[in-house]
């Protein structure tokens, strides 16, 4: 076997209180696309950061072309041809694409005068954009006006400009549309053909199957196994990731809801401020999970925000249990029992700096107070029940919620609302950034809620989740309902056809 491009040998990394990496081995060959898979907290990001010089390993070594190397800084790694592309992109939004491509290493002429070599830069920039399949005109555009997918490509182009031999990508497709994702796959294929290696973290198993040659699975900071391209299957990956077989990834204990059940929540002819010019009508029945599919930007989140009172409703009506419901602000929706688990958990769902208990209490304080004062005993009871019933992994209710893993954070968001006894639960991307183990738990929770008669309206871009959890699916396209699919009609092609606007 030839010498691998880069190799981690027995790498250890200790953080206060956590052994993030415990003797991890991993190698990447030239022109290979390697997937790193694992639950949240398995050590994937730490491994990438060690390879890219963000962290220094506490033990073991990193070898480049067979020679032990030390990257004291990310810049040192970049000079050696290892570039990390962050989950949160590191581009200066206010500068042009061209400026970003050469930020910090602008070609200059005129010796000590260091004048910018405008012409040379533009030529070099065009070549880079060409390699990632962006039009050369994009050079003069401001990064802020690009779509997330384009930004990602600019970041890749920048790494290529540094003559990168290995690109490390941390969940590159988490914020991309399907089209952008396909484009990224094509670019990865091109890079691979050009001899560039790619290391790739992803939670989307279908994606790994599509573009990776090999998958290394991490669990609790150790190697859990390795799969060749032929072995990459959903079941194999999940088994290695969680260390056990997941009998039922999508539990379903609830009885089917008869079609003549009166709806719990009904929207008819709804429009909202700054929304699309179409009206939307839909109904959710008690005990059913209504899946809502659509491309990014189809107006799904905006619609749910209008129903929750975050966007002013301008026309149409909302009916809850047959009675008209007037929602002017989120407080009205919360009082009525129409509750939203928002898409952006960190910005909207939680006060990250505050404790688990603080967050669990926040929407329930009215019920926990007598007059002005909060009843501490009842509050403690609420915290204990919430943590126990959702199996939130936290040392105590006083732990800052931002320190928990994504899955446990999401459970806290659910816990906030469960204590109120929801009638309608709107879930916007309920498992984004959540590891596989916690995903199953959340699916079981959704099933349980529906079985108890809650009407669940689930917005999701995860096709597996949509097909696995929903009883019925509505698809949105450019702000209007493009169609509805019963469970018996559900399949990926049917959903995609509606979502892309094909009739």
């Amino acid at each position, binding site marked *: 076997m030839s010498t691998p491009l880069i190799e981690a040998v027995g790498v250890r990394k200790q953080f*206060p209180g956590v052994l993030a990496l415990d003797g991890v081995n991993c190698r990447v060959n030239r022109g290979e696309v390697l997937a790193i898979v694992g639950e949240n907290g398995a050590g994937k990001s730490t491994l990438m950061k060690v390879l890219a010089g963000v962290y220094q390993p506490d033990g073991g070594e990193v070898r480049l072309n067979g020679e032990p190397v030390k990257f004291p800084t990310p810049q040192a790694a970049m000079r050696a041809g290892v570039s990390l592309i962050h989950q949160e992109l590191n581009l200066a939004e206010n500068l042009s694409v061209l400026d970003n491509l050469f930020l910090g290493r602008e070609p200059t002429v005129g010796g000590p005068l260091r004048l910018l070599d405008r012409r040379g830069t533009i030529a070099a920039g065009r070549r880079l954009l060409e390699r990632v399949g962006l039009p050369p005109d994009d050079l003069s555009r401001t990064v802020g006006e690009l779509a997330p997918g384009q930004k990602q490509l600019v970041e890749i182009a920048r790494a290529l400009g540094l003559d990168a031999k290995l690109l490390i990508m941390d969940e590159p497709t988490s914020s991309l549309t399907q089209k952008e994702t396909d484009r990224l796959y094509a670019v990865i294929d091109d890079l691979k053909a050009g001899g560039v290696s790619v290391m790739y973290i992803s939670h989307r198993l279908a994606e790994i199957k599509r573009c990776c040659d090999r998958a290394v699975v991490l669990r609790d900071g150790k190697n859990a196994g390795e799969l060749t391209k032929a072995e990459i299957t959903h079941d194999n990956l999940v088994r290695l990731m969680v260390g056990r077989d997941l009998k039922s990834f999508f539990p379903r204990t609830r009885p089917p809801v008869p079609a003549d059940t009166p709806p719990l929540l009904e929207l008819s002819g709804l429009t909202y401020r700054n929304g699309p010019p179409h009206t939307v009508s839909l109904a959710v029945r008690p005990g059913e999970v209504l899946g809502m599919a659509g491309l990014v930007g189809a107006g799904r989140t905006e619609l749910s925000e209008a129903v929750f009172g975050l966007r002013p409703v301008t026309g149409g009506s909302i009916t809850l249990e047959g009675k008209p419901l007037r929602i002017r602000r*989120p407080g009205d*929706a919360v009082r009525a029992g129409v509750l939203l688990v928002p898409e952006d958990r960190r910005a*909207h769902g939680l*006060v990250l700096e*505050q404790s688990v208990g*603080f967050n669990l209490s*926040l*929407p329930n304080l009215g019920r926990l107070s007598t007059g002005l004062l*909060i009843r501490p005993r009842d509050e403690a009871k609420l915290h204990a029940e919430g943590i126990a019933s959702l199996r939130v992994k936290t040392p105590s209710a006083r732990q800052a919620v931002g320190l928990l893993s994504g899955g446990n954070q999401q459970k806290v968001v659910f816990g906030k609302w469960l204590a109120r006894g929801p009638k309608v639960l709107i879930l916007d991307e309920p498992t984004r950034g959540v590891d596989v183990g916690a995903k199953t738990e959340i699916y079981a929770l959704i099933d349980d809620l529906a079985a108890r008669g809650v009407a669940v309206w689930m917005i999701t871009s995860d096709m597996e989740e949509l097909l696995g959890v929903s009883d019925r699916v509505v698809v949105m396209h450019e702000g209007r309902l493009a169609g509805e699919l019963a469970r018996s009609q559900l399949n990926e092609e049917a959903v995609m056809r509606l979502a892309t606007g094909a009739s």
Partner: protein
Amino acid sequence: MNEKVKFGAALGGGFAVAAGVWFATHTYHDPKDHLPAPWSEATLTAWFIAAAVAVGVLAYSFELTRRNLQRLAGVTLLLGGLLAALGYSGHQKVQENEPLIDTLTSRIERLQREGNTAEATDLREQVVKLQQNPAFGRTNVFEKLNRHGEYGILCIGAGLLILAGGIDLSVGSLVGLAAVLFGVLVEKGVHPFLALPAVLAVGGTVGLIHGLMVTQVRVQAFLVTLCGMFVYRGLARTISPGSPGMVRAQEVWPDFSAPLMQLRQWLTGIGADERLGFPGVFVLMLVLAAVAAVFLHRSAFGRYWYAIGYNEQAARYAGVTVWRHKVAVFAVCSLLAALAGVIRFLGAGSVTPSSEGQSFELYAITAAVLGGVSLKGGEGTAVGMVLGALVLPVVNTLMNFAKIPSEWEPWLIGLILLFGTVADELIRRSRGGR
């Protein structure tokens, strides 16, 4: 910790403090200087009980989290150091008096030998006075506590607002406007008991306008209150080009003289004989702090304010009507500034429209930050605000006693604030946080 144990300890602590103050005020004064006429035992008892209950409530409401304790430890250490320095400089004064004390002592002995006991007793009292550490003398302590009270009232308002993610730069100007407005009203013959609520209403309204500008028109709080800073100062100077004063009001409206004195005694502790019989502003501040502590740490309001301060969107998505709460804290901040203005007028007897309350907004913010309120919002405690507000008066006293030129005060304060915030940041980082 068990809530009951905490409650008992807090209440016990409150009473212990009050008993201590009681003991001090009843034994530490000049024997000739008996309680002046308006200071009945009943009045004093009411003050003590108010102070004790306030201390108890403050202690009981305090949330025993590690971060809160850490922040308190910081400001307590700072205050401890400053007080030790103060005590030392006072002690040096006593030592300077040593030769005089010796002379007096030998005279007393001579007088006693001569049988002139009356004169000897008089002299002995003088010696006792000279031997006392002047830094902790009653008059000085009371004056400084009242100063602390003024800063504290402003700091509670500014602290609550900063905690909920706002900022108010108009506090100082509003103190000036309220002081001048109160003075003008009483000079024009408005009954003092009516003028007080009127001024407070003006303060509250000003705060409401700030809040509505910020939440509805969406102008940045910094900008709105910066404009306010100029506007209120200008208004104060417009409605009264000269300095309104209490003496003139009493001359023109002799009928209102008594109620004015009454109000002054209750709010500041200055009796009809113009002597500071009790630190009234300090006790008033403690009571306000206790109320703030209950709201902040024991009620849903406080939770909402913390949530809004950290992450306004998360609060909104949890069903909190964010704008109402923001308007409310803006109103509270301005209301307390107006109250402080009235107290300044009553305490000083006359105010200068162009300078009254100048840069108090910065003192309030400094005190809040020293007390552990994060300018980023979402962090801080009521007890911290009270202790933070104590730093500036203590520094000020220290400067007087250690004969440090007053020109040094601004840069000393600046360095203390810088040192405090840097230390806090380093502690936070060392704990492995982000």
